[in-house]
């Protein structure tokens, strides 16, 4: 199975303390460290596991600047076979639709059976996967937390609000957005990344992809950010409700989510 995984380089929520820049329209990005969007790691891990089972290859792709190459290498160190960097000055400032259009152009050049993305990105809107599927006229399942590979079809599971599980059969090729918890992504250390440091990663721009520079980037963006701020703090108190066990569970979740453990 040929699998394409779309990833994104994002400021790492765990290793940063976010502050606004002086202009007040974005994060102060000077001291930030970046890494692969957490959800994307799960998508890569799932792709590698599928290929381990049924054969094929995993290609990892991202739209970004030169520095985005580091996330491709990290994913290749995990076990992705190929990497493609879609980079062009014209791509800068793209909205979700623009990113999806850029990805679509490259996706059509390949012959992929399965296209995965993270369910959302740390600083994103969770929109690219769905848009890409629509543009490619492929079936789409979001928030996937289980994949069983069959013949020409796959069965995907989705977690439904309230803890229920839904299973769907879906035709290939298709696009899936992957939820965290679907697997346990493997660890990549410095050694792993160094091993793939010299692997060639092709960089493609507008002309390679055959897309009109005006249709993407800031020029083509149909949504524009008008403000960015940290909301005023509320009173901060919250009552946890339910049985003792439920309250404990919620509290633990909160502590975990906020780095208390």
């Amino acid at each position: 199975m040929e699998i394409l995984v779309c990833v994104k380089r994002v400021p790492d929520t765990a290793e940063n303390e976010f502050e606004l820049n002086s202009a007040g329209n974005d994060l102060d990005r000077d001291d930030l460290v970046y890494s692969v969007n957490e959800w994307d790691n799960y998508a890569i891990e799932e792709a590698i596991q599928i290929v381990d089972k049924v054969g094929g290859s995993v290609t990892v792709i991202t739209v970004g600047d030169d520095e985005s190459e580091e996330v491709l290498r990290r994913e290749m160190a995990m076990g992705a076979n190929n990497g493609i960097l879609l980079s062009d000055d014209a791509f800068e400032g793209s909205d979700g639709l623009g990113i999806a259009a850029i990805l679509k152009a490259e996706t059509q050049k390949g012959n992929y059976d399965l296209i995965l993305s993270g369910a959302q990105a740390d600083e994103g809107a969770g929109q690219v996967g769905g848009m890409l599927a629509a543009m490619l006229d492929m079936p789409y399942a979001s928030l996937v937390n289980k994949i069983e590979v069959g013949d020409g079809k796959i069965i995907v599971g989705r977690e439904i609000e309230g803890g229920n599980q839904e299973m769907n059969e879906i035709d290939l090729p298709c696009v899936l957005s992957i939820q965290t918890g679907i697997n346990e992504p493997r660890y990549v250390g410095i050694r792993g990344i160094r091993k793939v440091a010299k692997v060639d990663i092709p960089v493609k721009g507008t002309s390679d992809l055959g897309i009109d520079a005006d249709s993407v980037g800031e020029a083509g963006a149909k949504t524009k950010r008008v403000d960015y701020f940290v909301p005023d703090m509320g009173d901060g108190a919250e009552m946890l409700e339910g049985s003792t066990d439920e309250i404990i569970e919620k509290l633990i979740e909160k502590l975990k989510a906020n780095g208390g453990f």
Partner: protein
Amino acid sequence: MTSIIGPASFNFFGIFPAVILSFILPVIGIGLFAYIMARRFAPLVRANPDSRFDQIGKRVKNLILVWLGQIRHPRYMLAGVLHISIFAGFLILSIRSTSLVVVGFSDGFVLPGFGGPLGDIYNFIKDYAATIVLIACIIAAVRRGIYKPKRYAVPENYGKDHTAEAVFVLGIIATLMISESLFEASQVAYEFQHTGHEHFLAPLSLVWIFKGILTSAPQNVLQGLHIFTYFVHDLTFFFFLCFLPMGKHFHVITSIFNVFFMRVQKGNIKPVMYGVSDEGLDDLESFGVKKLEDFTWKHMLDFYSCADCGRCSDQCPANAVGRPLSPRFITIKARDLIFKNYPMSGEIYKSNLLVEDIYTEDEIWSCTTCGACEEECPLGIEYIDKIVDLRRGMVDEGMVPQSLQKPLKALEKRGNPYGKMEKKRADWTKDKEFKANWQIKDLAKEKADTLYFVDSITSYDDEIQEIARRTSIILKKAGVDFGILGKLEKDSGNEVIRFGEEMLYQDLKEQNTEAIMESGVKQIVTADPHAYNALKNDYDNLVPVKHISQVVAQKIISGELDLKPCQDPEKVYVYHDPCYLGRHNGIYEEPRQALDAIDGLTRVELEKSRDRSFCCGGGGLMLFYEPEEEIRMGVLRVNMAADAGANIIVTACPFCLVNIQDAIKVAGKEGEMEVLDFTELIEQHLY
């Protein structure tokens, strides 16, 4: 006939010379033994290299103390004394057994030099030796077979009970002792009947007793017994020799080598591959131990040498709290696999990934590297390096639990496991009250003699930052000219290397080494034993490193620090030895000396203290790991302190402080028990 016929001249049924049997038994026995040993040698040859021929002086010392002197044995008094009895008996009787083999061809043979008074003295001693060994075997058999001490039990998930083998071997040893004594007693009794000459025998020894019983036995019975017991001894002896390499009694042969090659340096971690420099690491195909043959030959020898005594697991804190780790079975499972993959004949089998085959991931992550197991093992078997090597293999394969991936990534990106900004590493100096009184030099801008290496937890944890401030005040008052590295300091990496992330550790080490060298300091002081250990034992070519307790003890003696009388004299204090200060670095006395320098401070000792200290739960990355366990190590430790009658636990490690603080709450002992860091107690008592 005035003398009994020895096995060399005896004819079975009057025609078949016994000497043929005396010849065949050793030939077959030694031949078989040589073959078995050759097969057992095969995995050692295929194993990874190890460097064990250095520091010969220390190795000889270990041989004398640990092997010959058995100094680790009395730590378990009854078992230890029994073992020392059997061990000493074996050493003494090895001479007798060797000469007995020759007696089979040559009646009345004695080893050169043993004909005269030396022989008489030897015979006297060996008669008691045999007697003591027999008594020890009987007590040991009763103990193992009937009382069954808990530490010998084999939990269900680790396979079958080992009692049968143990008792069987005790039976073999008893057979050797009895047959040897009967062989001699029958001869003495026979001669006594003929000549009336009373051969001197060690009173109350086995021979003496048997001789007494046999005095009036018919001569043909004595003759028969003499020959029968000779061959029983001969057969048992060679059977035992060939049986030794089949299980836990292999240590009878391997122990001398294992102790000679045992760890002579403390606190350090073996290189990824002996013979490969740090720069060459990138070229290695694979890291750490993934398959059986990835272990070094010494680690393989460890597996062979384990006597299954269970002392390691009895001391292991991970085992005590029900984590899925028992060091004893790290060894036993590997030995079973060697025996399976390297059978006595035929094909040698390939090893699978050990962490899926015989070990589990949680098992290998459960170790806090406290070193209690290694400190205890009478055979010098190592665990920390094996655990680290297995972790290196797991890291290389990407098998790292999610709970550890985040702090590792943060260490890579930010140089600390919390993912805090580098520029905030010195924020502890900005505490209002502290800043008003004390100025801390930044070595990036100013020069100083001494570097205070703070390390991550003390730099970033709100509560633990207090240790940094107290340490600084102590140093200031002691007149030490010191500074800090600030944002140039990275995590020392003590747990990074021990959790198997070698390349990340190398990275941290390089950055720290460069910053330290650049600063031009002449010595380093730290209040974090983990940092102390890494800088002292893992880093190369640094300036000398001291723990704050050493500085304090020294400055008290020199009179540069003076302590007030105890401010809380009605409290009972107990000092908890941090693993990385005590066991790994031998600093037991200085913190105690400093505490005792406080007038009116009542200090008690924990039963498990100094080199038997019980780990509080582990430091560094271990704080992030989510183990399966029934109870926290810290809770057990707090209970031990309560049993010792203490209400203030003093420790000298930020991680101990965190773990014990939490444990006091979990144990429900808030208000009853309190934990203080060494620096806090000392600083409170400074003028």
